[in-house]
């Protein structure tokens, strides 16, 4: 079955990101397809490569990046939500006159249309949030 996932909260503060990750990992193991994971609201904060969690804790961002690479999952960060919260790739950084970017490997920034498309294309849409 084809799943679309929406993640509405950032890493560590709310469990939403962990729940989404564990759900996605289980779905993949069962042979399902993840059509797209869309990061919205504070969820965009899952996609910064500048996190350095404590050694004995899980690395939420790296975990998403690794999953995306291994299973070729489309991790999409909403551009409007990202601009409000300071998540930028090289293009966005340049366009907005910033001197740095912070996007993590495996994530891409795109528009809200990607969420709608996932909702239409997927067999099941599952939302994780606060």
């Amino acid at each position: 079955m084809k799943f679309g996932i929406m993640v509405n909260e950032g890493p560590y503060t709310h469990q939403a990101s962990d729940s989404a990750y564990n759900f996605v990992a289980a779905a993949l193991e069962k042979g399902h397809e993840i059509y797209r994971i869309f990061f919205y609201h504070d969820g965009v904060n899952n996609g910064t490569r500048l996190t350095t969690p404590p050694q004995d804790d899980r690395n939420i961002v790296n975990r998403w990046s690794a999953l995306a690479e291994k299973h070729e999952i489309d991790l999409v960060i909403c551009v409007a939500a990202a601009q409000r919260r300071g998540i930028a790739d090289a293009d966005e950084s340049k366009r907005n006159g910033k001197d740095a970017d912070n996007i993590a490997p495996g994530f891409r920034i795109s528009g809200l249309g990607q969420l709608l498309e996932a909702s239409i294309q997927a067999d099941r849409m599952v939302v994780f949030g606060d």
Partner: protein
Amino acid sequence: MEEAGETKKIMYVNRKAPYGTIYALEALEVVLIGAAFEQDVYMMFLDDGVFQLKKEQDTKALGVKNFSPTYRALEMYDVEKIYVEKESMEVRGLTADDLIIPVEVKSNEEVTKMMTEMDVLLNF
């Protein structure tokens, strides 16, 4: 399993008050973008979500943007199926007259039934 090109029934479920958190505003942004996809769209306001439609919002002193007039523009985007739960209004001391746009008022029982008829529920 959807055929390509098929139209889905999508319900935006709004349960949060405006301004205290950004969910109401960012949900509205999804609805506006979503209009271009020509799906069968339903907006449902439940619980504190009904406060999103309260008339007379004035954000000058707060220093944030008043996005409530945007609800009036939904019609132009062909978003016309807008529902508010009766019980949610009653609990909060509101009636349909307090709302910035005309809506269809549904009982909790009707809301339940409508939800079961959707293809996708997006929760804010």
